[in-house]
């Protein structure tokens, strides 16, 4: 007991009940999912074998990954520019931009999704205007296809991309950039050699956040995709709620979980993840 005390900080005893609870509440459902994926409808790896048998499942997974990658690329790139502008403009404009960003952050996803239909639908503001001024004869199909899904998702994800970047950029010592230009670096050299590397942890955090959130997207693809863009999250929900193929749903959920974990693992090979999640850069 004494020997134990020496090694275990007494603080752990205080948080132990909470820790156990948290672990149980996190691990319990995850283990349940993994269990379901190898037991429902019958024991074995039949659910996983479906991946090899069904082109449709692979197509759904590929659609999901493709849309998530494109969404992440655009949201993070746009988010980077927005965060950069916010950090480098005057305080008043910055507050203004932050307010706009948070307002769009707080608006329900349904409202945002349907607003895009109002704007870019077949009879939406943009198409009607373009037709009225004679620029186009037929409405442009912005919505109810993969392009529409991307517009909706990128728009939704931009605030998520901006916030980690904003934190990362605000934490930068401006003098480091001054030092670079003082040493003769051009603006572009300073950006590529100093600014970008120093904001990389924020960039990675933002990329991970957006990508992982995108994987779980459901409402926007369902509505803006016109039913034709089927992503994993919606497919899982249908398997759970409508077709009662819980084993398939669990298998896909497990697959996404392992996919994300694998991604984090690969990332951790290249950089310390603690710097991404707010730890000190070393």
């Amino acid at each position, binding site marked *: 007991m004494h020997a134990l005390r020496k090694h275990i900080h007494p603080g752990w005893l205080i948080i132990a009940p909470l820790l156990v609870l948290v672990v149980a509440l996190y691990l319990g459902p995850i283990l349940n999912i993994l269990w379901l994926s190898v037991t429902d409808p019958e024991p074995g790896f039949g659910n996983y074998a479906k991946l090899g048998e069904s082109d*449709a499942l692979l197509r759904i997974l590929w659609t999901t990954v493709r849309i998530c990658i494109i969404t992440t690329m655009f949201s993070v790139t746009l988010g980077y520019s927005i965060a950069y502008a916010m950090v480098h403009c005057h305080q008043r404009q910055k507050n203004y931009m932050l307010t706009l960003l948070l307002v769009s952050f707080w608006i329900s996803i349904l409202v945002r999704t349907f607003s895009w239909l109002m704007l870019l639908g077949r009879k939406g503001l943009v198409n009607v205007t373009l037709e009225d001024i004679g620029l186009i004869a037929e409405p442009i199909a912005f919505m109810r296809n993969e392009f529409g899904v991307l517009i909706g998702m990128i728009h939704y994800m931009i605030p998520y991309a901006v916030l980690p970047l904003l934190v990362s950029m605000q934490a930068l010592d401006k003098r480091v950039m001054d030092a670079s230009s003082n040493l003769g670096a051009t603006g572009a050299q300073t950006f590529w050699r100093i600014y970008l590397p120093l904001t990389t942890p924020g960039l990675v955090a933002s990329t991970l956040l957006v990508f992982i959130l995108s994987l779980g997207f459901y409402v926007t693809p*369902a509505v803006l995709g016109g*039913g*034709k863009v089927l992503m994993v999250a919606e497919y899982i929900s249908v398997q759970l709620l*409508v077709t*009662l193929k819980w084993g398939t749903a669990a298998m896909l959920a497990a697959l996404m979980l392992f996919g994300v974990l694998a991604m984090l693992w690969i990332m951790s090979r290249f950089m310390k993840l603690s710097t991404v999640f707010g730890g000190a850069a070393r």
Partner: protein
Amino acid sequence: MQDKQFMKEMLTDGAHAYKEGRMDRRTFLALCGASGVALSAVMAGDAEAAADHVVMWNWGGQSEECHGSAIGDAFTASTGKGLKFDTSGPLEGKIKEMVDSGNVTADVADADLFNAVSLGPTGHLEPIDYSVVSKDKTLPGYALEYGVSVILYGYAFVYDTEAYGDNPPQNWADFFDTAKFPGMRSLYKWANGSLEAALMADGVAGDALYPLDMDRALAKIKSIKEDSLYWGSGSEAHSMCVNGEVTMGMIWQNRGRNIENDTDGRFKLVNNQAMAMPGAYIVPKGNPAGAAVMQFIATAQEVPAQLALLDCLGMTPSNPAAFGEIPEDQQDYAITSAKNIDKIVYNDPEWWGENGGDAVNAFLEAIS
């Protein structure tokens, strides 16, 4: 999960036995201890079972108000029991989850009749007590062991009168004919109705649809995929028409009237070959109100309740005794009205209950 269900049943039985004096207190407590359940939890659950109300599980919104006025009031008047609502939407997976978890909080779910076919044999539903509920007050074939149809809704379509002018589409064959009737269509995303419409369009007779020829139906669906959108909810189907995204839309027939009104008559409902869907009441296994819920279902079958639901929600009566009472202004919209009843076809809940899951997946895979 099954174990938990068994445990609860055992304890509830035990609680009854204890109350009636058939089991001594020590034995009952030992039983509770053995299953790790506090005494109060079982007694409370038991007390709930003797509740003075039934809980209806539906989709909320207007249907909450309408179920209250059309059925709840009459039910309360005759039994003295109230009606409460759970509006979280009784999808098949949620019913299964609720029963499996052993924490059943709803008495009757406003669901589809095919849910009774898929969930009944797996032990998730209470059988319908046909000594209280009447098999004659619904259409033949729609009174099943684990569920009874109390209303009908239908898959019909609306079309844009300005797009098609003097030569409007009249049946599913026209709906699927994009050469003769160009423009975007919308179909139901979860296969139901869409598959049948495709087969009818392909020349299958309305009374010879089942078992569905999936390959043939999906081929037909795919043939107009480029010109199709798919909706997942009634409001989405509605907005696709009202916002001019489609020129022809499959819809739930009870939405037809609203779409006609919201487009000032530009869109028109076609009930020819409409697919009648038996909306059903089903009872989750171990429902808290117990047998009292059968009285509620019986009340819903009565002609006044049937007509009130039609008036309030646009849901068509399934009790043949009510067909003749459908008022004049509903003749065009109610699919079992004298005007429509000879033109409609009937959904087979048995086929859907047994094959629905695979059909939905095959459909989703075909359209995505």
